[in-house]
């Protein structure tokens, strides 16, 4: 579903991604871990071209999205993204946050878009917040809304960049629960996270990144019990 070929990213002189070759298949839940600054976010943001790779190709659903002729807005509709800082639209109600993109891009009628939004809000138990502005929500609620805002476009893959890192500890669970449900519904997911419990429970595959490279590409169980590289051993020793 997503294939990266020799992906490089430089910020000026800083070489952040140093050749990433991966194929992510439909239905996989890929967890990405690694030390701070190793390029996890940059990798994720390259997948929907929020960062433009300096070199290499990304093929999504058979389309080379890094080619100049490609209109990335088409594929972004199929790739939901969830940010650490939620990034809800503060001037819009929860309902409008959810319906804006479907109405503008899929040309859904207001009734259809709102009906879809209500179904999504039901899935995350927040139907009572439909007419509320984001400022009135807790962190956990904001992130659950951010997830369904992305789901409202009916994406084929969801990208998560440390979705629980900005949350108070007591709110992490409610967001992870939503993500677990999503995974069990068969959503293809790429998740940058420090939540090792989540990685072990729902990850079908784990990538360990260090200094812009994928050093390990395996299953969570194998990585946690038998890391192959010293860098991964060190990293896991620190966080487990």
């Amino acid at each position, binding site marked *: 579903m997503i294939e990266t070929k020799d992906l490089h990213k430089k910020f000026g002189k800083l070489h952040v991604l140093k050749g990433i070759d991966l194929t992510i298949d439909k239905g996989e839940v890929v967890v990405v871990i690694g030390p701070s600054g190793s390029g996890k976010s940059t990798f994720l943001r390259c997948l929907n071209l929020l960062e433009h790779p300096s070199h290499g190709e990304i093929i999504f659903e058979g389309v080379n999205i890094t080619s100049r002729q490609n209109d990335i807005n088409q594929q972004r509709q199929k790739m939901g*993204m969830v940010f650490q800082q939620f*990034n809800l639209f*503060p001037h819009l109600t929860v309902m409008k946050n959810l319906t*804006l993109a479907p109405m503008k*891009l899929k040309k859904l009628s207001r009734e259809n878009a709102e009906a879809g939004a209500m179904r999504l809000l039901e899935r995350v138990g927040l139907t009572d917040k439909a007419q509320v502005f984001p400022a009135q929500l807790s962190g956990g609620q904001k992130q659950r809304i951010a997830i369904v805002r992305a789901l409202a476009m009916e994406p084929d893959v969801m990208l998560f960049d440390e979705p629980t890192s900005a949350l108070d500890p007591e709110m992490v669970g409610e967001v992870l629960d939503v993500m677990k449900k999503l995974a069990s519904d068969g959503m293809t997911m790429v998740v940058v996270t420090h939540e090792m419990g989540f990685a072990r429970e729902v990850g079908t595959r784990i990538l360990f990144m260090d200094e812009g490279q994928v050093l390990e590409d395996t299953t969570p169980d194998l990585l946690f019990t038998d890391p192959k590289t010293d860098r991964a051993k060190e990293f896991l020793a620190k966080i487990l």
Partner: protein
Amino acid sequence: MNFSFLPEYLPYFLTGTVSTVAIAFFTVILGVFIGIFIALMRLAKNPLLRFLSSAYVEVIRGTPVLVQIFIIYYGLPIHFPNTVIFGMDLSRFIPGVIALSINSGAYVAEIIRAGIQAIDKGQMEAARSLGLTNAMAMRWIILPQAIRNILPALGNEFVVVIKESSVVMIIGISELMFNTNIVRGATYIPLEPLYVAAAIYFLLTFTLSKVLGVAERRMRSSD
């Protein structure tokens, strides 16, 4: 203190005030259009447009408004009709407003740019990640939020323009400052007419600030 001139010369101050308000009003309107245009250029992808707009802003901000007014007044190739409205000669009034708007437009462009840049970049990223185009994201996500920063600053620019407009007396526009000088000359009273002018300017700007403050609070509370 000698204010004995007031009863006889009050009409000068009043027509001057009307002119000053008219100049400021048209300057702000035109300046906002220029400012939006320059700000859009500044946010454009095309490097030439970006260069031209930032050069515009830098040159305007780096030269005295007095020089700009003279250049426009003597440099504009068109001659405007000598029709007189409210004591203002259009052949002077129009170049004066154009010069002030060109000046104010540079500041308005900066206000707009700052208002847009103050929006967290995560907003644009979230909008683009949904598949919205850059234009859609601007229209529906960025500008509605930026406008809340921009409007109060624009109101403040209106206040600045009222005060700065006094410099157009130099090309013979009979606004408040010009008329004040007439009164000083005609009465041989050098100081007191200036007090009257100062009081009127203050009344204008103070009232406007208060009105804008109320409008701003209304806007914030309607969130």
